């Protein structure tokens, strides 16, 4: 068999004589046809690794001089086209090599010769910029990466922003609140200094042919974009006491960005043994840019509503097994401000169902949760108030709140909030879970619609099951009681509540409604014998679970 494969390789009309190799990888030059002027390729070869038959993939490489000159040539010279289908494809080694060679001509050589790959540099602009940055990187460059927190606005800006020296990263953005939360999240307490940044929108992504390569190119583009006066101010900017300062530029194209560090900043210091070495910053350095703006971090640019949610303030009352994950989901969904109110501390009994863990036992639930959210999802400013809602309302109002979530299941909280909402026209979600999370309910009340009607609290009437007393368990050695359910079962209730809240935030709900999540009879039977649905909920009986929406 190996001999047959050898013969196949030796006699393949597209492969030239095998190259002598110092390792076990075999290399065969590929036949290259005559290509039009300006598009010639003088060499390409196929590499067949030793474990090709069982494990590894064959690939095609081009000389490194073609990197950033021809699209799809990666940083190591290998040609990134759909090629070898691999040993798990069921194809024989011969068929795999044939496919790779076929694709080399049909997906690469021919389209390249016809100019059909020319636009691929701009389609995959960030890939080629990353290659460019990695080719220019030095061990001593003071900044490795820029993170941007501003939304794309189409306007040029100049501002100072934080530089975390030990991590060699800059957090760029002129909205100090979100930017500083990211700095807190990412600095781990390390020293923060300042750089001068110019953020410049551009219409087309940079490609190897046209990205600025010399300081003169940068000066020219920045001067056109900022105007001569602002450009001059930026280029000549200095730090405190006239000390030199790093100057970075972020060019923001639609969906991607390109950074530069200008020469002339303070030298970077590197500790080597007992001595501290200084390296001057005297060259133009391309930098990778990663976005931290909410449109990207929470929605990968696919959910424009996330940007509006940044302006929303949500008050969550109750930060337990339902409240804590709902708060995190809302933060991930782009909500800009969360106020968490709960007077409870985390106990060992909570950690199986709460998002906080053992390291928070004994701490205020909301304090720890707010900190954790702000650090992990810095686009959300979460504040915790470890007190009852009644106490919180003594010193605060709902005036700047857009929506209240009552996740306590407590009647006096429902009543108090209903009264407060009469003073402030805001939306309300009341959500709770029944035992075992056999069902969960989210009531959505747009501003102007109230929970208490005809002096009645409607919660019990909305439950799907009439529960026998023995289902509510008593904690040993204390008078408090609890329901039995697992964290996994509660996840359905979290999703129901979060989606309902987001629908209200996004103004998709005009009149009061209730959404029920109801598990089927099989689940009920597993949890407790003899449980029965109320008449209206019986339609869920045959399903594993069902969501029902009704007017409220």
């Amino acid at each position, binding site marked *: 068999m190996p001999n047959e494969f050898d013969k196949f390789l030796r006699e393949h009309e597209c492969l030239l004589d095998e190259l002598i190799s110092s390792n076990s990888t075999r290399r065969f030059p590929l036949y290259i046809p005559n290509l039009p002027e300006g598009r010639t390729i003088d060499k390409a070869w196929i590499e067949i690794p030793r474990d090709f038959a069982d494990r590894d993939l064959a690939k095609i490489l081009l000389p490194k001089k073609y990197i950033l000159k021809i699209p799809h040539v990666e940083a190591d010279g290998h040609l990134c086209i759909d090629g070898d289908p*691999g040993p798990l494809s069921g194809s024989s080694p011969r068929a795999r090599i*044939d496919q790779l060679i*076929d694709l080399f001509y049909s997906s690469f050589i021919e389209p390249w*010769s016809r*100019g059909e790959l*020319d636009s691929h540099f701009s389609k995959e602009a960030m890939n080629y910029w990353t290659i460019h940055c990695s080719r220019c990187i030095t061990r001593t460059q003071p900044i490795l990466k820029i993170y941007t927190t501003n939304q794309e606005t189409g306007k040029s800006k100049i501002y100072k922003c934080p530089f975390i020296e030990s991590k060699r990263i800059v957090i760029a953005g002129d909205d100090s609140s979100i930017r500083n939360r990211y700095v807190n999240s990412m600095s781990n307490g390390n020293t923060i200094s300042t750089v001068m940044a110019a953020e410049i929108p551009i219409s087309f992504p940079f490609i190897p*042919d046209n990205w600025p390569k010399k300081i003169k190119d940068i000066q020219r*583009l920045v001067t*056109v974009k900022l105007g001569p006066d602002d450009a001059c101010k930026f280029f000549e900017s200095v730090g405190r006491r006239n000390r030199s300062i790093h100057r970075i530029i972020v060019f923001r194209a639609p969906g991607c960005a390109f950074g530069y560090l200008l020469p002339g900043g303070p030298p970077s210091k590197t500790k080597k043994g007992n001595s501290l070495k200084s390296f001057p910053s005297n060259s133009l350095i391309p930098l990778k840019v990663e976005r931290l703006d909410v449109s990207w971090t929470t929605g990968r640019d696919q959910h424009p509503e996330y940007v509006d949610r940044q302006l929303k303030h949500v008050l969550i009352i109750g930060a337990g097994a339902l409240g804590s994950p709902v708060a995190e989901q809302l933060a991930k969904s782009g909500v800009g401000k969360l106020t968490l109110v709960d007077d409870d501390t985390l106990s060992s009994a909570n950690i199986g169902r709460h998002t906080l863990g053992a390291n928070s036992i004994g701490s205020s639930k909301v304090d720890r949760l707010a900190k954790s959210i702000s650090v992990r999802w810095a686009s959300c400013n979460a504040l915790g108030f470890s007190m009852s809602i009644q106490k919180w309302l003594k010193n605060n109002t709902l005036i700047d709140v857009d929506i209240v979530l009552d996740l306590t299941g407590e009647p006096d909280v429902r009543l108090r909030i209903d009264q407060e909402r009469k003073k402030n026209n805001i939306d309300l979600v009341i959500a709770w879970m029944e035992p075992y999370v056999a069902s969960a309910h989210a009531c959505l009340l747009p501003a102007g619609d109230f929970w208490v009607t005809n002096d009645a609290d409607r919660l019990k009437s909305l439950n799907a099951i009439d529960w026998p007393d023995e289902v509510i368990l008593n904690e040993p050695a204390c008078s408090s009681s609890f329901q039995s359910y697992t964290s996994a079962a509660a996840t359905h209730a979290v999703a129901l509540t979060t989606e309902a809240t987001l629908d209200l935030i996004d103004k998709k709900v005009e009149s009061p409604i209730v959404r029920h999540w109801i598990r089927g009879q099989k689940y009920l039977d597993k949890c407790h014998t003899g449980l029965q649905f109320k008449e209206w909920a019986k339609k869920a009986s045959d399903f594993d679970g069902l969501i029902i929406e009704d007017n409220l």
Partner: protein
Amino acid sequence: MAETQYSYLVSEAINRRDAQISKTLRKSLSIENFHDSSHQLEALAHDIQLVNDHIKVDSRIFDEASSDYEGIASKLVEKLHWPNESIRIIPQGSATTKTLIRSPDNSKFDIDAVCSVDLTMVEVSDPMDFYEKVGSALEEWEPEPKKRCWKIDFQGRRYYIEFTPSTPLDKIPQSATGQITFSPSNRYREKALAVVDTPSKQWKTSNPEGFSSWVSDQSSRPLLQWLLEKSMRDSYSAESVTPVPAQDVEISDTLRVAIRLLKRHRDMAVRRNFIEPDLKPISIIIVTLLTQCYEGLADKGAVYTHPIELLIDLVELMPYMVERRGNEYWIANPTVEGENFAEEWNDNIKLKHSFDTWTNLLLEDLTEIMATTDKDSRRQTIKEVFGCTAAQSPTPPYGSGLAPKKPSQHHKAPPTKGLA
């Protein structure tokens, strides 16, 4: 020699220009002796010629477009039952001035055509009825309505056709003649048409054929010494003329070369993010300013010994050919009385700033080219400035069959990275 409108504008422009490019060129040439200077200019002309060849659109495209025009005309006859003789298709814009260029990313470009219909032979109630009827006849190509034309995307073509319904001015119904925006100027008056201006739902005077004739007529006026001499010899004996190599003719067609180069430079300035796509100077402005300038120079009796010198003058003078009439910027359409191609500049000053930004970049780039005396580096600079690098080189026709053998199998998907 009597001063004409454009020779006056050129004289004013000469007084106002910086002449940085020509000074730089003279400085570069003065380093050389006469013989070497001549070589330098020839090398420069050769490099410019390469750019010109690089950006020009293959003439076969126009043949393809011609057959598409015929297809469109047949469709109008078939669908609207308009008489064949009532319809005349007139290519317009850069397709007729021979100044069409490739786009920097090899994407599709626009080819303009006017469909002139004799309204006395067809039934239309008003301008919009006429415009809509033409659009509905073209529905199988899903035309996109534009301000005055229909844009058609023919499958498999490298261009879009922008198709403008129009009628000869004297064929407009009597009742509507008082409502036509603008009137034809005295130049090429017989070629004037009326097109439908959809925002105002009115007829508007247009003269694309006249405009093209203006560019062609001006570009054929000899400003180069040897062309002048040839022209004089022609008038005595056509047989005595030595055939001029095709390449020389190309670069000596300096007005068209200048139009192509400047349009390309503008396109590159957009791709390089110096100017916003929606603020870029429109081609008609570049063509008008350069042709005005050329006409003004010809009217002044200017004579050049080398096309490069003429090219530099055109580039340096062009920004100053924009007129100020009161507080308004004016670039007058020479074939339509009262039409100002710079009208939008007066409502949106960013357009004027963008024009200034571009012309400054152009002058800087050409100055740098002229300052480079080493031939190889200069060629490299020229290629970079005009975007003539490998990934932007012209493309051969389809179906080159470069693979040594046909694909032998149905391709299997490679292992993927998953969806996380």
